[in-house]
């Protein structure tokens, strides 16, 4: 009888999980498909690199970026269906004389969306296993916490819509089932090996996405240990998987000679330098996003956690994750929203857990006694409301509120575009559309990869070895402080030669050069002068970015020169 009831409850839990996750996720999907060009610049750039790698180019030989190769390999996997479909359809389209290309970004967006749903489902599976095997106290806690966690994660994905698919976003997807599983492990719950291994592998892969994530995962485990006052963590298979994947990954990329050399001599030091680099561009007023909304929300959530989640390990660990996310934001050093994804994710879940705890405490208040009438009234209401219905309402309300927020951000961007259209000849998109054609090569020298969502949506191909200029700025900063190692010095020289050569040999159809340090760099290397011999400036354009998502500038909303090849 009990097991039947448990089974019914589990099915009901799955249904409720689906129902409360649908509003934010459905809205997110619609929004992603409707505004394709407003995705994360970094995500779009990685998709483009993955596309180039699928087309047969070689990482570090023909294209360079300090993204971990594992991210690019995963994106290649995501784009593989597009490639296969393209291959299958090519004979027919050729017969009909059509040129048909599958948009890579669609596949990438769907792949990330699938990962997100997978992460939520994996967490739900972890909860289901706990409901099947744990003791009644733990079962009760799982019933209370699982839905707020899922809702928090889904809502956070919608909040970070403009940074969808960024590294931190992918990392948080892996963290959700991991934290949930580890929390239950500390409560003595056993899981099937396959599930534990899956969670471990997923988390292990996510940890390889960036170096600071190793510290995050270690500190999370330490947080559980401190909170549960255990000197020895439960050494289970998922922990072994996480601990094993990173060395395995590092060993794998060290096998090919070229990878080993470039990875250890250039990528790792460059990433390390980029963490410590003082970005002078963000020193001035209004030079970066002012995401006080996220920081203040984090402060409120921390306070709520201190009040209501005092004895709740799960809530405390998510709060600590929010603090670590704040640390990652500081490490990022650019003040961009994509460095705040972990804060948003952890704060959302901690807030949901706090609200659930408040509702639970309210419903436990004796309505007939007590000094504060308002609290008694609220307690009366809290008792009448079914918790799952309340969560569904919360899901809808949050979705609508965030949708308004996204709309507001777009309205702000529209204002900027309207204002700057008067000052420039083209917007960046117009420059791309009018001065180049699909599948043509375009070279954009800009500080951040803001150009790539539009390039991906309009099917333009990058022409450069280094796809955005920040690594050059890092190298320059390190050079002036004498931090450059010999390989890095060589690489710095090589980078400029590459730019030079790409203009001479690849001869991009359109070159867009930002008026900031990028222009200074190529002017100093005398590339600009030579460039003007074969190209002419046909107008100026801007990214029309502001100090808020979807497009955030770093430093200043710089003017850009659009150059077209001179007619012979």
């Amino acid at each position: 009888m009990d097991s039947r009831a448990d089974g019914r409850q589990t099915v009901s839990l799955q249904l409720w999980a689906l129902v409360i996750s649908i509003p934010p996720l459905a809205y997110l999907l619609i929004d992603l498909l409707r505004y394709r060009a407003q995705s994360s610049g970094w995500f779009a750039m990685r998709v483009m690199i993955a596309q180039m790698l699928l087309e047969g180019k070689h990482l570090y030989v023909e294209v360079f970026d300090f993204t971990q190769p594992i991210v690019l390999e995963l994106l290649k996997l995501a784009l593989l269906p597009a490639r296969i479909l393209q291959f299958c359809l090519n004979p027919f389209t050729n017969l009909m004389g059509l040129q048909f290309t599958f948009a890579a970004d669609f596949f990438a967006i769907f792949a990330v969306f699938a990962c997100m749903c997978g992460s939520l489902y994996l967490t739900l599976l972890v909860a289901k296993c706990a409901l099947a095997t744990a003791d009644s106290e733990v079962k009760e806690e799982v019933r209370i916490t699982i839905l707020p966690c899922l809702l928090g994660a889904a809502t956070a994905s919608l909040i970070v819509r403009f940074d969808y698919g960024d590294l931190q976003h992918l990392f948080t997807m892996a963290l959700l089932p991991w934290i949930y599983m580890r929390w239950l492990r500390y409560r003595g719950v056993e899981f099937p090996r396959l599930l534990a291994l899956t969670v471990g592998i997923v988390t292990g892969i996510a940890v390889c996405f960036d170096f600071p994530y190793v510290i995050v995962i270690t500190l999370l485990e330490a947080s559980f240990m401190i909170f549960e006052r255990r000197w020895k963590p439960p050494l289970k298979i998922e922990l072994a998987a996480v601990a094993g994947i990173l060395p395995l990954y590092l060993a794998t990329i060290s096998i090919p000679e070229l990878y080993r050399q470039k990875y250890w001599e250039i990528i790792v030091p460059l990433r390390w330098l980029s963490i410590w680099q003082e970005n002078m561009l963000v020193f001035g007023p209004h030079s970066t996003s002012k995401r006080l909304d996220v920081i203040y929300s984090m402060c409120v959530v921390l306070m709520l956690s201190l009040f209501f989640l005092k004895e709740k390990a799960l809530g405390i660990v998510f709060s600590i994750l929010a603090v670590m996310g704040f640390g990652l934001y500081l490490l990022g050093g650019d003040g961009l929203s994509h460095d705040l994804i972990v804060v948003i994710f952890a704060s959302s879940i901690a807030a949901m857990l706090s609200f659930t705890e408040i509702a639970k405490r309210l419903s436990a208040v004796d309505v007939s006694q007590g000094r504060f009438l308002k609290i008694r009234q609220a307690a009366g209401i809290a008792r009448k409301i079914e918790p799952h219905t309340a969560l569904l309402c919360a899901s809808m309300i949050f979705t609508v509120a965030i949708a308004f927020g996204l709309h507001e951000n777009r309205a702000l961007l529209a204002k900027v575009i309207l204002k700057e259209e008067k000052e420039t000849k083209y917007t960046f998109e117009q420059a791309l559309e009018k001065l180049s054609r699909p599948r043509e090569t375009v070279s954009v020298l800009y500080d951040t990869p803001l150009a790539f969502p539009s390039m991906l949506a309009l099917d333009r191909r990058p022409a450069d070895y280094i796809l955005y200029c920040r690594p050059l700025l890092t190298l320059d900063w390190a050079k002036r402080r004498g931090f450059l190692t010999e390989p890095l010095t060589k690489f710095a020289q090589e980078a400029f030669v590459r730019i030079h050569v790409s203009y001479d040999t690849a001869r991009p159809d359109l070159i867009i050069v930002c008026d900031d340090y990028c222009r200074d760099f190529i002017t100093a290397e005398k590339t600009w002068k030579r460039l003007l011999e074969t190209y002419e400036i046909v107008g100026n354009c801007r990214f029309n970015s502001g100090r808020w998502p979807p497009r955030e500038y770093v430093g200043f909303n710089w003017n850009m020169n659009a150059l077209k090849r001179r007619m012979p």
Partner: protein
Amino acid sequence: MSEAKKKPLKELWNRVATERAAIILVVLAFLALTLERGYFWSLHPLHQFPDQALYLDAAQWIMDGKVPYRDFFDWNPPLIMYLSMLPIMVSKVLPFHPIFWLNMLIIVSTFASACGALYIAYRYLGRDEFFMFIPMCAGATFNVFEQRFDMAEREQIFMILYLPFMVLRYAIWTQPIKGSEQPDIKVSRSLAMITGLMAGIGLALKPQFFCAHAAFEFVLFARNGMLKKRLLRTEILAVVLVMAVYAFYLIFLLPNDAWEVLKNEVLPLFIYGYEYSSKSLMYMMHGGPYFYLPMVMFCYAMAVALFANRYSQWAAPLAAFTLIGLFNYLHGDQAWPYRTIPMVSGCYLLCGLAVGLIGKYLYYKSRASKAVATCLLATFMLTASIYTYIDFENTIDEVERCHHFHNLKDIGDYIGWTPCPPMLDLNPTFMLMMKYSNYDDKVLYLGTGINEGYPAIVQSGRRCATRYPFCPLFLVDHCIIHRPKEEKERWTRLMHKQIENYKQDIVRDKPDLILILAYPPFIDMLERNGFFDSCLPGYSKYSKEFNTLVYLPEWNRPKIPVKEPPTSTRQDPSDESAEEEPVTWTEVPAEPASKYPDLPEVPPPAKADTAPPDEIVVPAPPQWHKSVKKQKSIQQKKPANEKHTTGR
């Protein structure tokens, strides 16, 4: 029976002995820190920063009978100016510079505050809580002591005055009260009154401080309840009393015309003009070690608070205090590290709490708990001693390594003691003031902020020759340019009014020296608004040194040494013997004041009779101290009767 009696007595003795030993050790540690800091500041007798120096000057003006806002412009609430009267008064009695006394008073107050907080913890907290509080108190005190660059800022004074009150309030909230099963803690009325009065002064320094304390109290209330009984207490009444007196002064005693200036000039500029100096959010958190270290501490302290919340009642209220501190800093929108002091103090308290909790854990886990306690205290004392020793050595090294400014005899003649500060503590504007004016002369400095003009004016013992101790014109200009068009007329009127005020002040006070920051946009702004034409008749540009234009009145033009005609062999400028040439003194012809100052300045062709001041102009930093040495040697060669004349 006797055995039963003996045991509690023994326990009591043990307890008292341990706690007393702890207090003695900790107070000794604080004393060592105090002496070390006192030594450090005695070697830096003129080391001060712009805001604090301005408050000292404002205190002097108030003592001279001037009214804040009406007679001098500032946008800080006036309490700090009244507090700054204390070092001024001490310096009138004892023969040292007010800056020295201000720093010393802060050091002594910090020591007193730490001892007071410890005493309250000893008296009113439980034994465990007392021992846990020791590292907390040490952390907070260390943070206050270690303020080198923000010495005597209001945030630091707040933490000094607030710490004992914080402990007392915590004790009151967390101890059982009357009507419950256990007896109430009885706080001595005089102690509560003193603590409350001190905290009231601290809290009244800035409204933000009150928010931080309100958050602290609110969390304790939410945890413990019984609001009425815990709020209506002597120390709270003392705080209310201070607030009431301050409010009474502001409402009834501050003259109407001061309010008018505050309403129409100070507040609008404070709200809109400050945007000029704002920095990006990332810079405020990552712009250098002074910014990112507090943020790193914040992350660490928050993690500590989340863990410690289960074991100590301190965690949540301190976390609330720290979070409000962060909010105050970020919302202030200015990258001024001193604004992080309350937040960082909260972080130190939380870190101290972590140490205390670990100590407590070890104490109870260990069989020889007394030995553990002694070891912990000894470690604490040892750490403090080692730190003090290292810092002491560093101080001596640093002072020995740097050059000192010896030419402060004119100040010494007036204050009864000739300071000999390290050159690092003095800015180039100070050098210009020493060069072109005398003690107690009136000096006008125009720049884009408080910096440079202050602390140089206070350090050199000059007087500010205008109601604007710092030039607000650039901020008004910023508002004219960046505020909506409909406000333009209002800001333009304010600009004209302030220039008119400058004109009146210059005519009335006849400054002996006017220094203008040679920052092209600033000069352009002054020129656009007709400052040179309307305010500087009778003054002429004399030189440009240290990126500053020097304007002198006709009566104060110094005699400049004219070089002998060049000999055939060119001398090395670094050659000391070059200074041994005989010099003659002649008047330098003035350039008309209304002429637009050319930037960058092109030196006029060398003429024997109109020798430009280049001969004595010291080169730009960082080698400026050497040049001052050269200047000093030139001054020493002047005949006694040929000193700079003031014409008065």
